[in-house]
């Protein structure tokens, strides 16, 4: 009976106390990191607002929207918008979540040489042309930086961004 109770108690803890907390925390960190990146990049001039587009649905979007209420970039309001892969505009940042990783090539084609920072969260995306790619190392969200791509697009990252990247291409 005691053994049964033990099994039940542990299972209950597993079901109730831990449900996907790590996953949810990752999304919060990713949202916060995207905002942090804006502080380590010289954006030059842009319009009246700082635009972030998210391709498809992502749990990062509500985090970014929460940030947009609380923070600004270069004294400009942050505007977060969900878009389809074929309808990206000319924002400062495009975030492609893992469930849209197949859209990376199409998005990059549309970006062309415009100074748009493309951020992804899928293995190998930095090598495929994303400016920044989130990777998981142990239980930490880290990021890879494609300096070559950013240079081609005329985006100037701070040296500290390069220093803190887990990998620089």
């Amino acid at each position, binding site marked *: 009976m*005691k*053994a*049964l109770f*033990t*099994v039940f*108690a*542990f*299972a209950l*803890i*597993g*079901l109730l106390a*831990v*449900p*996907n*907390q790590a*996953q*949810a*925390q990752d*999304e*919060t*960190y990713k*949202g*916060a*990191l995207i*905002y*942090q*990146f804006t*502080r*380590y990049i010289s954006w030059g001039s842009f319009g009246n607002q700082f635009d972030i587009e998210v391709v498809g649905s992502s*749990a990062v979007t*509500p*985090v970014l929207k*929460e*940030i947009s209420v*609380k*923070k600004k970039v270069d004294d400009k309001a942050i505007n977060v918008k969900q878009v389809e892969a074929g309808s990206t505009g000319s924002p400062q940042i495009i975030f492609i979540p893992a469930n849209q990783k197949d859209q990376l090539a199409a998005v990059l084609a549309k970006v062309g040489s415009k100074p748009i920072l493309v951020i992804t969260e899928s293995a190998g995306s930095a090598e495929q042309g994303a400016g920044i790619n989130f990777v998981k190392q*142990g*239980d*930490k*969200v*880290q990021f890879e930086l494609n300096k070559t791509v950013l240079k081609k697009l005329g985006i100037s990252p701070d040296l*500290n*961004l390069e220093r*803190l990247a887990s990998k620089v291409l």
Partner: protein
Amino acid sequence: MTSPRTARLLSHSLAGTAAIALMTCSSAFAQTPSTSDKVDLDKLLEMDLETVLEQQTSGRGDVGSFGYRLGTSDSKVDIHGYVTNEYIDAENANSTFDNHYFNLLVGTQVGEKIFAEIQLEYEHGGEEIQARYAQVDYKINNALIIRTGKFLIPINTFNEYLYPEYINKAISRPFINRNIAPTAWAEVGLQLRGSFQLGEHWTPFYSAYVVNGLEGDPGGDIRGMRNNHRDRNNDNKAFGGRIGVTSDFGFEAGAGTYYGVYTPDGDDDLLIGSFDAAYTNENFTLRAEYSLANMSVSDTSVTQQTSIERNGASLTASYIFNQRFEPIVRYDFMAWDDPADETKDKSRIYLGMNYRISNTMNAKVGYELITNEGTDVDDNVLSFQLALGF
């Protein structure tokens, strides 16, 4: 054949394994992303990128331990300290160099309301090591702060604010601050304190506390009764408090008290009172203090009287000129109401000169003319001190 005990152990092991497996599976299959409250987004936004990257860890299988993980939280740690190096040449003792203190002050502010600090005292070259105080403050507002842990007793200004040598004007401490209201004096317990503005110029303050309290022999040396960190001999607690006022024109005054049972058997009690006042301006300081202690002694074989009273006072004046030089003069005495031993009555004139190397570093020279009542023993002392706060 397995014994019943072995079978039971096996059953428990299997149950434990199954439980952990179930817990792991249940976590792995749960897929309901949501913005988690476990991570404080506001804090992440205020941190720098490096801190955000370092912060996110459960610590399992990772580097570091408690300190490393706390280092990624929102507590900021400060390390300070003070050093006191001396050369003492006393008439009735060998002359000696003394690395009197090298004390570390480690403090932190956690959020807006929580403050913690410890003074790690390394005395006489590390011969004596202890936590002089180790406290946590929770600030509800200026008028109410809750302090717990081992804290300096708010008996007078000297014990709470002035005793470190880089602040104290003289090289030595007044007799009363050694033998009646002994400094540094800290006790373990709970304290409420606060201050508030009264009109344009005055700031009254208060503190009230309950602590384990001093403990020692009947009629004994009060200084030696400190460090009763845990009550092991009785349930009695000591209590007291202090009220006072500061002003924006340099005057301050306060009165503090302490009362508690001091013997392990709980038969004898001790009352200490202390009154102090000071006037300071840019260059001039005048400070006075009077303290008294009354201790009951139920065992008359110790003193042939049922109580002992000790009292004393000090008056210190100093003046800074040329921004660097500060002559000091102090008179202090203590009187021992103990017919069995009148030799403890003492008075002293301290003459000194300080050179302020910086705001927190002083080079001092002092000469003390000490009079021991009831004896012809000369006990004068020449001393040099270098004191640094950092």
